């Protein structure tokens, strides 16, 4: 980007400032909308976090409580458990979801009969609303006679005991991971498909001439060409993972024994159910800085590998 000054001199008909005004006009609508409907509400949560404001206005006026809300959150065992759970979820869901998405994208990027039909089929989970997904998967997970447990019984010749997927503290999180990856992999798949489309055929042709086999082409052409896509997918999936909420809210409400409690669900309980807006805002702010830190670390790590 440091070469811009060179190209700027080449402008002939469009004067420098005219160009800049145009650029401003192109940038401002988005920025204004984001400022009004994302930044402003977010900033106001900083103010709310310092008060004991309630969802429904009360006869007792809200008052300034300083950093009380932050102290309450940071000394609450449930908050730390939620943080730990979200970290576990992220570590588990990242390889499953992204790996599967990449595999399917590679499959669907090949010459294949009915390719568009399959692309539609593989994308179906992503267009299903999460509420509906949870309803279906609750049936699949049912204990002890649900389809998953029946399959388990058949595969193990009746040796394995049925698993209470959503009710057993050891299995609840893996179950949520599986469901989440199934519902959301379509997003990563589509981003990978777009990325694969961006790889020039000439690179593969050149590799073929060098005598590379399929596996070598994958490692030496496809993967390096997808670097930007990988970075994007990694960061986005991590952020999405930290926002885990809907499926937990519907299926387990954080249980059993807090093993699926997440930060957003913790915040939701405080703000919506308990009506403590101040406390919920404090959680939102802490969550923001945690994810910001994680993203920054990821960026640094990825940059180092360049």
């Amino acid at each position, binding site marked *: 980007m440091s070469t811009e000054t060179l190209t700027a001199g080449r402008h002939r008909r469009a004067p420098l400032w005219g160009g800049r005004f145009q650029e401003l006009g192109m940038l401002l*609508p988005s920025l*204004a*909308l984001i*400022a*009004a409907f994302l930044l402003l509400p977010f900033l106001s949560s900083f103010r709310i976090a310092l008060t*004991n404001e309630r*969802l*429904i*206005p*009360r*006869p*007792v006026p809200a008052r300034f409580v300083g950093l009380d809300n932050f102290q309450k959150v940071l000394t609450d065992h449930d908050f730390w458990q939620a943080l730990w759970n979200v970290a576990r979820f992220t570590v588990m869901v990242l390889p499953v979801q992204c790996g599967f998405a990449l595999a399917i994208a590679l499959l669907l990027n090949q010459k294949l009969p009915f390719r568009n039909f399959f692309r539609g089929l593989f994308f179906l989970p992503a267009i299903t609303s999460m509420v509906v997904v949870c309803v279906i998967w*609750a*049936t699949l*997970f*049912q*204990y*002890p006679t649900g389809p998953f447990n029946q399959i388990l019984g058949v595969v193990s010749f009746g040796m394995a005991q049925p698993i*209470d*997927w*959503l*009710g057993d*503290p050891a299995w609840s999180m893996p179950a949520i991971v599986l469901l989440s990856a199934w519902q959301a992999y379509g997003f990563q798949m589509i981003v990978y498909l777009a990325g694969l489309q961006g790889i020039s055929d000439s690179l593969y042709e050149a590799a073929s001439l060098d005598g590379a086999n399929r596996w070598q082409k994958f490692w030496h052409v496809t993967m390096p060409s997808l670097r930007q896509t990988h970075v994007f997918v990694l960061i986005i999936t991590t952020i999405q993972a930290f926002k885990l909420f809907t499926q937990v*809210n*519907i299926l*387990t*409400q*954080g*249980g*059993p*024994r*807090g093993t699926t409690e997440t930060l957003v669900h913790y915040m939701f*309980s405080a703000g*919506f*159910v*308990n*009506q*403590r807006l101040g406390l919920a805002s404090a959680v939102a702010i802490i969550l923001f800085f945690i994810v910001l830190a994680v993203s920054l670390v990821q960026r640094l790590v990825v940059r180092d590998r360049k």
Partner: protein
Amino acid sequence: MAFHLSKRLLSLFCAGTMLAGALTAAEAETLKLMFQGDAYEIKNITATAKKFEAANPGVTVELINTPHDGYNEKIGAAVSAKALPDVIELDGPFLANYVWSGLLQPIEGLVDQAIIDDMTPSNVAQGTYPIDKKLYAIGLTDSTVVMYGSRKQLTELGIRIPTSVDDAWTKDEFQAALEKLSTAPGVKWPLDLFRSYGTKSEWITYGYEPLLVSMGCDVIDRISWKAEGMLDGATCVEAAKMMQDWVKKGWVVPQSAGGNQFYAAGRPAALAWGGHWFYAEAEAQMGDDVVVMPLPKFGEKGASPNATWIYAISKDSANPQLAGKFLSFMLQDPDYRAGYRDHAGFPGLKSFAAASPLYAPGGAMAVAFEQAGKTAVPRPPHPAYPTITLAFQQAMTNIFDGADAQQELTKAAKEIDADIEDNDGYPPFGEAK
């Protein structure tokens, strides 16, 4: 600036839709009513509103159908938008919170006195604010929880089937029945407590608090309005441990097994501790083998839950008289009543009970109605209720999942008391009586 921008973009992108959605501006008299309900209830109230409009020329009833999910938050949103409708349907136990927050006005003098006099004691209890003892809400229906079983199965095993609240199972009798059922052929779980409803639905407080009350304790002391010393006291801990014990013995249907185990193929669950609405489901699969029994008596006296969605008039209503007139009209409308009767609605008015064969003496659910009259205990009518119920539900869920009962109940009691303290005790609650 964002405002102008948004207006312009609005006209740019959505001009076409304006045509489709132009609301007719009725300048005469408009009554706004916020409600929720199943599809048949929506149909029901829509028909009643049309009739009311026909009977009162110049009056428009604007029905604001609001999905059940997030209802409480939507009331908060309406308050902050200064757009609270004239009539609000609300969930009974949240009434104290709304009255304390200054959202509602008493309905006596607005709704026909004859209808108020027709209310069952339980219905009056759920609509009354304990501080001023005034009535703030009314409804056609109420609710309760009963014990369902299979007549055939219980008879075969020689387990006594109580037919009245007065001869309800005692604690020992009930646990003996569970024990016996646990070894009966085909029974996977002796008892379905409907854990599948989870903590999102209010079920745990609604369905299980009566057990605590019957044992002789409660989720909060209803005089001092303190949870510590009550919810974490020995009696409540004993009650929680007893329920935990049922789970440990494998007597209770797990949360992830679904809410249909009582009537699913093979009848895996023998007894069901379920709401009156469950009768329709069970009856559809099992016919008249379903037997309805009162909840067991765990201590000196029995207890059962009550309350459902009821109607109140908002304090800022421009026309409370009209709101009262509409409610009177609605509660007397024969078609409105018929709609609820056909869906096994639990009567909250005496005259409606008399016209509901299901709940009348000799009806399959007669015991349920008798129970509501004799043992109904409203959930704590206190403005901290939203916190009380969340804390209790989380504690009970953890206890069922194996956590230490004393520890969980202590934590819940502390949370409840901290919330009350945070609101300066919700004056005048907790002040000297």
